[in-house]
């Protein structure tokens, strides 16, 4: 794959991201569930259940009267799901579980994905997602080396599965990259999967935003005025 092809794929992913992210977590999970069922990967269903139940789209925050504050989250943007190409075919599909986790979590949390073509299973993942109706631009399979992928400044995060030996140079290459600081979300232990089963895992794929609305801008605070006259005896 040429750099140009990779960049085109990234552009395409970028243009599809906004609508996918705006869809909301419930609808995204609904769409992804079909694919998860087909794949028969318990990790995917388990993660989507966790995302659906522990990541409310908005949380109201306390604060002064006359102001509405809330905390929201959305996908970071475009995520590169990649793996250690020399290892993926080993060990009875233990990598596959991790790759599924990274891919489904990235998508469910509102990101567009560039999926590195590392082995046959990535093709299967790709086709299952497409046949489940996930738009083509949101999950694109690319055959690019890890090195080429790390050169792309448009990636907000890299969801990597591989050995610690590959992780260190990957981290170094990413740090050399210009642009934003890319998140590196890595699973390196395939017996216990400490990363993909951790409490904080899905949160690594998202960015938070705070919304603060002055609800008294028009002229006053009717709710508070009501409280001032509340009868409580």
């Amino acid at each position, binding site marked *: 794959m040429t750099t140009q092809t990779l960049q085109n794929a990234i552009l395409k992913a970028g243009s599809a991201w*906004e609508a996918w992210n705006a869809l909301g977590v419930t609808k995204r999970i609904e769409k992804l569930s079909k694919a998860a069922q087909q794949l028969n990967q*318990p*990790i995917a*269903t*388990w993660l989507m259940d966790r995302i659906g139940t522990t990541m409310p789209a908005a*949380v109201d*925050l*306390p*604060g*002064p*009267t*006359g*102001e509405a*504050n809330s*905390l929201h989250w959305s996908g*970071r*943007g475009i995520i590169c799901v990649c793996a250690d190409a020399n290892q993926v075919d080993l060990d009875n599909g233990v990598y596959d579980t991790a790759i599924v986790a990274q891919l489904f979590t990235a998508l469910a949390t509102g990101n567009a994905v560039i999926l590195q073509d590392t082995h046959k299973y990535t093709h299967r993942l790709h086709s299952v997602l497409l046949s489940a109706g996930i738009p083509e631009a949101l999950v694109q399979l690319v055959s690019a080396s890890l090195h080429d992928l790390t050169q792309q400044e448009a990636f*907000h995060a890299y969801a990597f599965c591989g050995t610690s030996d590959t*992780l*260190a140079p990957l*981290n*170094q290459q*990413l*740090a050399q990259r*210009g*642009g*934003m*600081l890319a*998140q*590196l979300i*890595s699973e390196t232990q395939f017996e*216990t999967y*400490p990363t993909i089963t*951790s*409490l*904080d895992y899905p949160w690594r794929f998202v*960015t*938070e*935003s*705070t*919304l*603060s*609305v*002055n609800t*008294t*801008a*028009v*002229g*006053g*605070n*009717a709710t*508070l*005025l*009501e409280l*001032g*006259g*509340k*009868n*409580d*005896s």
Partner: protein
Amino acid sequence: MFTATGIKITKFQVNDIFNADFLDQPLSQLWQHISPLYAVDENHWLKELLPLAAPDDNERKHITQGATRLIEKVRADDGAIHMIDALLLEYSLDTREGILLMCLAEALMRIPDADTADALIRDKLSVADWKAHLKNSESLFVNASTWGLLLTGKVVSLDENEDGTPSNVINRLVNKMSEPVIRKVMNQAMKIMGHQFVLGRNIKEALKRGHASRDKGYTYSFDMLGEAALTRQDADKYFNDYIQAITAVGKDTYKGKSPRPTISIKLSALHPRYEVSQKDRVLGEMHDKVLELIQHARAVNVGVTIDAEEADRLELSLELFEKLYQHETIRGWGEFGLVIQAYSKRALPVLVWLAALAKQQGDRIPLRLVKGAYWDSEIKNCQQRGLSNYPVYTRKESTDTAYLACARFLLSENVRGHIYPQFASHNAHTVASVISMATHNDYEFQRLHGMGDALYNTVIKENNVAVRIYAPVGNHKDLLPYLVRRLLENGANSSFVHRLVDARCPISELVNHPADVLSSRKSLANPYIPLPSELFGNERKNSFGFNIEIEGEWHDFEALIQPFMSTTWQAGPIINAQMISTGTTLHAVTAPYDHSHTVGQVNYASAQHVEQALGVATDAFPQWSNTPVSERAAALERLADLLEANYGELMALCHREAGKTLQDSIDEIREAVDFCRYYAVQARLAMSDTVTLPSFDGSTMEIQREGRGVFVCISPWNFPLAIFLGQVTAALAAGNTVVAKPAEQTSIIAFRAIELMLEAGVPGGAIQLIIGEGATLGAPLTSDNRVAGVAFTGSTNTARVINRTLANRQAEPVPFIAETGGQNAMIIDSTCLPEQVARDVVRSAFASAGQRCSALRVLFVQKDIAERIIPMLRGAMMEQVVGNPVLHKTDIGPVIDKKAQSGLQLHIDKMKQNATLIAQAALPADAENGTFIAPTAFEISSIDQLTEEQFGPILHVVRYKASELDTIIDTINASGFGLTLGVHTRNETTANHIAARVRAGNIYINRDQVGAVVGVQPFGGQGLSGTGPKAGGPHYLKRFTREIRQQQA
């Protein structure tokens, strides 16, 4: 007790005020009673006030009978319910639809372009769930229909019989095709409303239209509508309007018996900086201007009343009033008066002082006693600023009680002839009370134009008492903000005015004496309105702030700061609880606003100290990590208390080392305190218990969090206490040990913070302080394999360097939490209120000399209003005071150092070549002694003209066409930064659209975009602006932990 000036203060005893000689005390002595009551404990003060308001049995009976009779007559009067009363009856303002329609009414007339106006109509009429409400036929559709009818004068009827189901009518109305029609109708409706609620568009029209009421015996006080002036030009315009109005009233030829009308003036319209901080200007140039106005009024014998405004300006208004009143050209006139708000806890001592002022001068002061118009914003303001208590009462019945207590004093024999009381109320019980309490007729009532007609028609018929109508005069487009405020004051279900005209409400419920109602409450203060300190309930205490606008609070606060204004501090690295002075390099610290002013000496650490600190921190980790989270949290809460206990010293350091202004310094300390308490709570929440969770493979996981090891915290100079402690306390609470490296520019305050932390009980091994230059210490700190994580706030470039150094270690990747820069935008459309925008833009762009990550850099103004907004912004900028941040009058202090100054100056010089200068504020005469940058605004064609963040008081303005909004959003997103965004619009659909599309971490609607509060507005951006999680949010602390698990099959 004695004050600093040696004046003896006796406790203000409520009963003493009736003593014959009480008003003969020196004015300065009576003045001393005012300020201490600013935020007095409400229960305590009301207990003192209640006996003054409470009637004896005879009076109670008399009042009840009088009020009952008045209400019966009002209800019997067929014409009683019209105009504002009708609106109040139809609108209980707790409905979304009512509020939406009010929003529409408030904004519609000022929108110059049809597209935006139509979009606003669509927004307001389509978002509410009208259909659901229709099933509930009793209220909402009726309300909506009423609005339709009332607003449109029957031009458009929302009659449900006309078109099948009522919701179809609404849908048809908001059908795109009909929007221009609706717009015309709505505008027409506003004019009709304007005609009803504004006495005249100009004073001549008002005088003419007032004749009918004057024939009935009423007279007027004319109120010129308009917002507060933000610019010299606007102030001049309002001044001329007042002069013309006074002239016209003076020439009025009305021949009837009704007393002469007066003019009410709003001081904030007459000067762009009518504020305590600008007291010299207020008592100087502003005094001269107002004097000119009053002299003119006296020459044509038109009485003038100064309107009351916010609680912060009360004392200032009194000082100005005193100076004007005592002026030789005003003495002896007796027609120069003012308004006092009874909801203010200070009202009674203010009345005493005013009575003494009049008595000692030997003439009278007309005084309008109102209940108060800013109640909700006063409460909000105090909660935001963490003040000790409210300046106003928190219950309606308390205000009503205080009103009667004040009335009793004003009607007393001692005061007669000195104060001419003017009781403004639409409450029949208050009116009956005043009539009963009065033993003479030297007073009058006042009512609003369009309100209480029936009530006062009865009063004027049955009593020998004067009634004056407070009547708005001015453009109809200025009416709605006024009307909205009146509706809010009186439109709530619980308000007297609302219930008076509601025949379903039994009269017996309306004639209870407020003192009796209040006495029956379990607590005199309203339990539903928490004190500012209790804003976060049981979770944590809110940080405490001082109100520097209030004389009493300021004097106490200044006394805390003053001892440290000449201190010379010695600071250095702290390793294992010991300050290090060997092997260090000594650096002198001077104030950024005056380089001849020495702040202290600081010992800079070497790379060897870094090695030592990392060693100590590594060794201490197991013990600190194993310390129960409750103990770690408790130590941080003790630190919060110690920070507050050392407020004065920390203020002095914020001023002298960081160049921060008074309010910025208070905010800084409060944020640091909030961080300590917030992360203590977060740590307990996240780390006290083990989480049990089924895993995907059917096994069960038991997960516990613990600290990761040694965290390096690298913080900037712009929030030298808050961000510094925010990072450090999160890391410590999570069980890490910390090596902290504050910016070298603000080492001393960091040093003091660590000393306090040790005092609070954080062990010496857990916290290491490394002071010195980032260039020499950064690499040794971040290249060490023992580092288990880094928290950093600073520039995007430095973040990259740290990231590379961390990655190059022979170690596993570790968390790197980076908070970096921004190219923050604000988007305003033509529905916004220009005055509000100008205020928020000036604060967002220039407060703290623009040295906030959140500060506004690029303002996008819809073309249609640019010619209104830009001159207002220019005028407001020219009123900003740049200078010594220690002084209250200073709005904008210095930038941090020469490097920052020259970089910013270079940008200004470049922009002067490539952009249009909008305004540049003046620098102080002694600017050369420090590092100042004049606040500057440029108009540019696109955000693309800016390549990097300019971390200082420089604003860029871009005009955009309404149709190009999405393109503008794309360009903002294309900058790659995503920190803060401001939006000013009355259109919720627009606000939601922008908020959904702009990729920013903190989005602020219809307010300024700086000053994020811990736990309320968690702070942090995305893209080039940072990694997350948000500081002061629920996920931040967790990033400092690792999960330890046990898995069972």
